[in-house]
């Protein structure tokens, strides 16, 4: 057992790592959704066959989203270092980290939201229109509730992706399991690295399984199908 392992084990460093990873991931995911959810809604609305087509706006937003998404995260991160320094006064630490994670993942979230909303049956949208629903009502009362299970699945995928990014970002700034693993690599403490990997696997599993359970639970279609299968 390496010195670092014993040290981290006794001072609770591993738990701090798990906590920091979770904290960064969840905070970034929430902020990414605050930006990405409305963006995804706008992408659906302004689409050529959306509720209020604005083709030029849709094209511009689509291009920006694609542009940010084409950057490999590690490169985007390096590019964002001066931006984070200018905006937050620091390019290291958890604040800067979260900023980078949000910039990188919000466009991803927007696409996830867009694809979930597009799964909603066009006929149901038409029915709501026929009842005199405004576009705002259609978004709040049809698109979002009807797409809820799919949105939750999307959120799980986004969160796991952000968690992966957060470990990567440890090469530049921030803490968490990624930072511990990086430190361990410098002193050849393989056992620490392996424990970090194991802990990450556990965290991902919890998010994944918990999210999927929730998605199944809220889906009124799935629940019935399962019951029919049993009978």
């Amino acid at each position, binding site marked *: 057992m390496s010195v670092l392992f014993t040290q981290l084990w006794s001072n609770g460093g591993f738990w701090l790592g798990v906590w920091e990873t979770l904290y960064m991931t969840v905070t970034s995911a929430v902020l990414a959704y605050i930006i990405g959810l409305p963006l995804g809604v706008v992408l659906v609305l302004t689409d050529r066959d959306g509720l209020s087509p604005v083709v030029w706006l849709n094209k511009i937003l689509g291009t920006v989203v694609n542009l940010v998404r084409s950057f490999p995260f590690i490169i985007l991160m390096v590019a964002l270092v001066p931006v984070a320094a200018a905006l937050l006064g620091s390019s290291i630490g958890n604040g800067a980290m979260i900023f980078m994670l949000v910039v990188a993942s919000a466009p991803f979230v927007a696409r996830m939201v867009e694809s979930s909303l597009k799964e909603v049956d066009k*006929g*149901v949208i038409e029915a709501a229109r026929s009842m*005199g629903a405004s576009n705002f009502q259609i978004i709040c009362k049809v698109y979002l509730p009807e797409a809820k*299970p799919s949105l939750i699945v999307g959120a799980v995928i986004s969160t796991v992706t952000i968690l992966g990014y957060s470990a990567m970002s440890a090469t530049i700034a921030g803490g968490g399991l990624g930072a511990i693993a990086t430190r361990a690599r410098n002193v050849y403490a393989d056992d620490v690295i392996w424990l970090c990997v194991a802990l990450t696997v556990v965290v991902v599993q919890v998010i994944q399984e918990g999210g999927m359970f929730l998605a199944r639970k809220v889906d*009124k279609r799935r*629940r019935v199908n399962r019951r029919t299968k049993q009978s």
Partner: protein
Amino acid sequence: MIELKNLTKTYPTIGGEVVALEDVNLTIPDGAIFGVIGLSGAGKSTLVRCLNLLERPTSGQVIIDGEDITKISKKQLLQLRRNVGMIFQGFNLLEQRTVEANVRFPLELDRVPRNQAAARVAELLELVGLSDKAKAYPSQLSGGQKQRVAIARALATKPKYVLCDEATSALDPTTTESILQLVKDVNKKLGVTVVVITHEMRVVESICTHVAVIDNSRIAETGLVSEVFSYPQSDIAKQLIIPNLIRSLAGGEGTKLRLVFNGEQSDEPIVSALAMECRVAVNILYADTKNIDGKAFGHMVITVPDGKSATVTKFLDAHGVSYREEV
């Protein structure tokens, strides 16, 4: 009353403009069950969507109760749609809402207070016979039950008009019958004017008072069902109403007469009587007749030898059977 004046709808496509409706003129009187029948792609669905402006006509007027709705503001249009309910072939229920929440949906859009809405929902579910399914989700229902929920939902805001877009086309014959009966009840009890879009003859036959036959984006023929069905004028109407008539008229000797039964006594053996009294050999080329409550409905094509047609028509006139000579 809904009036369509010179209604035209074209869609721009890459290969040029596609005409969906051309110069459509129709009057849908209050209290009617107005059928619009036509083959697939004739423009029926576009027509019905022009009535609540889910599709905007390229030109022409849609006049509902004296007001041209193509000219009203967006806000007024949303209000107007609460007065025009709609049901669909695919039911289009909100899958994540219970039956009662689906029926409540239009009331929520209208910001009706909760307890008031709850009472209305209970009333509607009672009307469509689904009170026991209030807490069920759409995926737990059969097709017929889903359409009942959709009907209840369409009626929630007490509309004056209900549009049915192929509402029974996805249902089996028995279920179709019960849904049609419900639509008829709604028309009678609530005085709702119903517009029924369909490609199925029996739908028009069993519930409609008026019918418009649409063909190639144009109205080929329109009128009371009893008139149009007895004496179809256009080729498309003949083809839809008496599908095998045209074929049965081809070739052969003699005079061909089409007898139209429109509610005469069905216990009278008219063809046998004709053969015996006029001493003529009658040949039946085509027959599609029904006995509904002791009354005869339908068509029959007979041939009589050329020289005898005067005697035969005299007999038919005397017995009150209407007929047309077909060539």
